[in-house]
């Protein structure tokens, strides 16, 4: 299988490249990047053949493409992939506007190619097991959620996350989609209304985008969920350690601190700790599923529509921030 990586703008791209190398069915990897210097450097480091344009890469008889461009540039990349007839795995949020996300879904539908949003949480064994129990009625009827997806500011890695024109916003744009998708998936229903508040306090207000964001989503059935998306954690914390979900059901409460199985390691002479993650790698599982679906000519587990729904909620959230009141989620 021949896989192309469109842009290294998103910092996950490096991890994706590394994981792809260990998927047996992937025989060849190519990469392209608007930032040629970055593209060459990271292609070489990751064992991918570098191409100087998206067009060149898409001409390489690819079986699948992974889009890691800046958020505002994902639409163009996905439309190009669709035009080339290549299925796409696209970083989230799919786009900075719901209209763009809708256009991406439509383009792929028309071209008859799959569009899969990159939601690695769907591949967490702990979360999948939780959903199984939930669906089987073992946990009782879900009534409310208290969820966080707090991270360190990703700006050390890529400055564009703080450029609203490219990112669509700060902490909310960067962190909400994964939780929104998780909640939609667990509940099997759509968000009806969103309330959101943000501030710019962390890092002394240095970022032009919001660095703290709290959302409250109300679903059609009345179930409500709060989401904390803030850039409030330290770089020293383990990946995904800021992901916590408390679900309250008629039977009580379950607190999931997913992906928290780590061994904490502090070297004796080193004051900073590091984390040695245990358990499977979610990116690996997600990429394996994407490439597996291509190989088997079946639709991927997560659809373009799921990606679009998350963008709709994000858009409503930003409107709510402006208006100071909850806003109805509009469907495209």
């Amino acid at each position, binding site marked *: 299988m021949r896989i192309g990586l469109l842009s290294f703008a998103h910092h996950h791209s490096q991890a994706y490249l590394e994981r792809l190398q260990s998927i047996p069915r992937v025989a060849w990897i190519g990469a392209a990047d608007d930032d040629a210097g970055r593209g060459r450097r990271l292609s070489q480091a990751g064992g991918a053949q570098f191409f100087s344009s998206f067009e060149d890469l898409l001409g390489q008889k690819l079986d699948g493409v992974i889009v890691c461009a800046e958020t505002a540039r994902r639409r163009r990349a996905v439309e190009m992939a669709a035009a080339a007839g290549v299925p796409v795995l696209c970083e989230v949020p799919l786009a900075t506007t719901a209209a763009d996300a809708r256009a991406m879904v439509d383009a792929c539908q028309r071209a008859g190619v799959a569009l899969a949003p990159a939601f690695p949480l769907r591949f967490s064994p702990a979360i999948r097991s939780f959903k199984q129990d939930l669906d089987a009625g073992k946990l009782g009827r879900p009534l409310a959620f208290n969820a966080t997806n707090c991270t360190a500011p990703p700006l050390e890695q890529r400055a564009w996350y703080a450029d609203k024109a490219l990112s669509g916003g700060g902490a909310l744009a960067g962190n909400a989609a994964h939780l929104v998708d998780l909640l939609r998936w667990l509940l099997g229903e759509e968000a009806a209304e969103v309330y959101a508040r943000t501030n710019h306090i962390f890092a*002394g207000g240095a970022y032009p985008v919001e660095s703290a964001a709290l959302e409250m989503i109300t679903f059609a059935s009345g179930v409500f969920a709060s989401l904390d998306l803030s850039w409030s954690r330290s770089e020293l914390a383990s990946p995904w350690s800021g992901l916590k979900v408390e679900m309250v059901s008629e039977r009580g409460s379950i607190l999931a601190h997913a992906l928290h199985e780590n061994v904490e390691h502090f070297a004796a002479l080193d004051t900073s700790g590091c984390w040695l993650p245990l358990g499977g790698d979610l990116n690996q599982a997600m990429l394996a599923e994407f490439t597996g679906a291509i190989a088997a000519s079946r639709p991927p587990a997560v659809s373009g529509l799921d990606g679009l729904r998350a963008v709709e909620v994000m858009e409503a959230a930003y409107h709510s921030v402006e208006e100071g009141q909850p806003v109805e989620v509009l469907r495209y």
Partner: protein
Amino acid sequence: MRVGILGAGFMGKAHLAGWAETGAEIVGLASRTASGAAPLAAQYGAEAFPDLESLLPLVDIVDICTPTHLHYAMTLQAIRAGRHVVCEKPLARTTEQARHMLQAARAAGVRLLPAHVVRFFPQYVNARNQVMAGEIGKPGVIRLLRGFYRPKKPVGNWFLDEEKSGGILMDLMIHDYDYARWIAGEVESVYARKITGYWPEAPVEYGLAILKHRSGALTHAAGAWAYPPPAFRTSLEIFGEGGLLAADAGNDAPVNDLLDMPPAEAPDIGLPVTEQMEDPYTVQIQELYTAILEGRDCRVTAADGLAAVQIAEAAEQSARSGQAIVLDLLPEVTGDAEVEK
């Protein structure tokens, strides 16, 4: 000074134990459910009284530990008699009532102090000291959680009678609105939801509130009556520009009891127990008493009690209306309300 406690329920008992550690003379305990009052009063060398009126002439301080909806009338009655008042949270059921209480106390020249005991819990105090010392810079996000099981009471369960108690968004979560304000200052707007808001007969209750402070800080408060007895959890996280403070009373408790306790054995209401040398309830009563006795400032004021009621009322209103509620500026809170003399 002489003190009389009003209410022989769980809070009355906790306060009595606190007063016994002060130099105050415990004169009496007044309760309508007099059967519980007499033996309890005797334990402290005090008398049982059937009502506030009979107790009033004999005391200098009244400590009100009755259900929320009774605070207003009882406080005004005590103030009219020229007595100082300590009053359990919430200070009153409504902002209007709390404002009248403040104004009456000022006019009469007596002290009115709300018993917001979380301000006396070591983790909460310690965290605030760190914030005030600048250890984490300006607070950006505050996350607070307080969770117990559904309180059980005999017939006439006033906790569950929202008109009287204000429901979870007031009765339980007011602790955290007060604490959030103590950390990050005045609150500008409130948005809240609770389970019984859309399913009144739900077997569990959970409330979530998002507070926006005038400073820009955001507070996320969660309240639960949803855990199995006798579980309780309280936690705080304060995220600042330069660091994070976190304390989790469920996990940090010296002994974590995961034993299954039959409901009959579970205490009436969940109250966090601490292994600290000093019981926070006792420290609280001691500080409130000293403040009254010596005419001194205290870490909490009547204006704080009023501000917390205002936030709580707004949270209830938000959950009912589905809208975010913007708080009016209250002169009693924003003015020179630091010292109640």
